[in-house]
């Protein structure tokens, strides 16, 4: 299983670091990409990842109201709300996209979130985006 995580550098990336310094354990199949703010996440990044057969995408940002850039994550929230529905309509299980609010102090929550998304993905029956769709239909 392969999971991409987009973490904003101020809250959730720091949260991930904290999980590390507190030696919390979580599964290894998560790959973190550091971005300045969750509002930097272009929906196409996520579509791209999923269409390349990634099993899940985890987006993590500061808690609403605590955004380092004061309002960034409010926009993220709106964009992802719509994206989630679009993906669902296109036939991708919306559980494959998870958004968590994780502050720099929430190392524990980061580890939990990783476990959470993985357990969600394990429950999912339907296959991810086919590796070479040409052959599939």
């Amino acid at each position: 299983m392969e999971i991409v995580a987009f973490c904003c550098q101020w809250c959730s990336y720091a949260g991930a670091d904290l999980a590390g310094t507190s030696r919390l354990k979580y599964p290894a199949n998560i790959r973190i990409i550091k971005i300045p703010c969750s509002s930097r996440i272009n929906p196409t990044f996520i579509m791209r990842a999923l269409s390349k057969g990634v099993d899940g995408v985890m987006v993590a940002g500061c808690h609403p109201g605590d955004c380092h850039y004061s309002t960034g994550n409010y926009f993220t929230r709106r964009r992802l709300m719509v994206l989630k529905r679009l993906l669902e309509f296109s036939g991708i299980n919306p559980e494959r996209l998870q958004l968590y609010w994780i502050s720099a102090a929430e190392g524990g929550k980061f580890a939990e979130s990783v476990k959470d998304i993985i357990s969600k993905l394990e429950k999912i029956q339907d296959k991810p985006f086919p590796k070479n769709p040409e052959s599939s239909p």
Partner: protein
Amino acid sequence: MRNIGVFVCWCGLNISRTVDIKRVVEETSSHPQVICSTDYKYLCSEPGQKLIKEIVKEKGLEGYVIAACSPGMHETTFRELASRCEINPYLCEMANIREQCSWVHEDREEATGKAIKLVNMAIEKVLHNEPLYPESFPLNKRAMVIGAGVAGMQAALDIADAGYEVLLVEKRPFIGGHMTQLSETFPTLDCAQCILTPKTAEVARHPRITLMPYSEVEEVKGYVGNFEAVIRRKATFVDWNKCTGCAICIEKCPKKIYPEFECGLKEGKSIDMAFPQAVPYKVFINKESCIFLNQGKCGVCAKLCPEEAIDFQQQDQLVKEKIGAIIVATGYDLIDKSELAEFGYGKYKDVIDGMQFERINSSSGPFSGVIRRPSDGKIPKEIVFIQCAGSRDREKGKPYCSKICCMYTAKQARLYKHKVPDGQVYVFYMDIRAGGKGYEEFIYRSVEESGMLYLRGQVSRVFEEDGKLIVWGMDTLSGKKIEINADMVVLASAIVPSNGVKELANILKITTDEHGFIQEAHPKLKPIECMTRGVYLAGCGHAPKDIAESVAQGSATASKVFSLFSRNSVLAEPTVSIVNKDECSGCLSCETVCPYQAIEKENYRGKVIAKVNSALCQGCGSCTVACRSGAIDLRGYTNQQIMAELEALLWK
């Protein structure tokens, strides 16, 4: 395409225990652009950095990846090293294989696999990095201090002494802040006025300090080094260039009021001067109460003023000022009366707060220094002090400790005993917090020498009976309920941010915490910086603190301003958004999502398009998503870079 180097750090056992370093090195060296991949025990160490430097020289690397700890830890270290190796610092990337790999995973196989991926991602990112150069902007070496309390004055004086212009804005008509209302100060018991007046005088006469009393900041535009402020100078209805402070007007003014300075305890006039040592030594008219301003007749002051200084036509003025740095020293207020109803505060005259006691005790106060109770002027023989009145009270929304109450209560109790030796003092406290030089000693001297009674517990209720104040309290140490018939009750009321701070914070684009105190950039390492560059923070606007601390913070902010002003220009982070002019459609979707109003309009080939003000831009990248054509991109986190990382991650 560039020649990349990869350096993998063992971090002693921290990484090497769970990650197979050798394999990481091998796997990554197979990457076409990687011309050398090597490892070392501690890359951040002196020899480690030396090693990197040598290899960069020898192999002629154009950029490198450090696979080690979190960038939060050592990015700066290795980027500075890069520039020492004549590589643009932004051509150095870190792969976080410690915090986000070796420390969180146990299975060596998995961890190693992940480490390799992370390094590959970093390599791809570096390959798409552009060398970035911080832009520099001229700066205006002039500071504005908001709030002329003791903290603000200190900051202003330090900056002015260092040779820079200072603008000192104060909303009250006089400077000195709340300290001017105090009688004596702990722990030395020296007279507040006596130690303050030298400072106020110095501020007033300092050639480089422009004083703006009775003024408020309305608007602030711009960025560090180049702020532009609009300040409202409220009308005093007195021409201060003419007024000599002779006070004839005060004497003859028919309108009596209870000015805020005396906490409603002492009568003043509608035209008045806050207190005898007020700086500036000028009178002002209270708009709300003045008979002439409200009914159009009277005008006695105008008739009598020998200098003809009275000017009823005077209007508020808006002045524009250019400054390079801002210090916020907005100070505090006391919790609202209605919040302390169980103590009868606001209902019974003889239940007063700490500030009112200061006025009563002050020689310039309502009873010229004799301690009497407001209701009937009797000298209180039994006096109850209640600490934590509103503080540490979740239910009243003030869960924090107001910090100075333990000290000033002890001080006030002691001063009371000095003046009423046969009086009895009771102090209800929950904990004594006397963490300061000489504080603990002070408290115990008070308790021991002055024979006052400290009761450990809270008071539930205060009410009046037979001209006495019945106090129902608890002494948890004896487990006994205490009932006291007191003559006067003094509440150590909770400290709250002075009103208007929220609005000011919005104007300055700085944040406040849930209690309305101004938020510092980092609780430990940046305690006096605000989130916005070039804005600093001193005094009780930040959190309750005593005079010494406020002064220290004032000076600290001043030193921040020095280091800013010591340069001739400010450098801005180069990781900012940039517009591709030809591809911008001019729909300006980016404009509305920008939290910093950094998007400006620009005419280009007959169309209006977006332009990023790189000084305002903080590099969040929200605009890059709002922009459908991808005409705006974020340096350091370009679409290319992120997509490249993504691709690398998908390599099987």
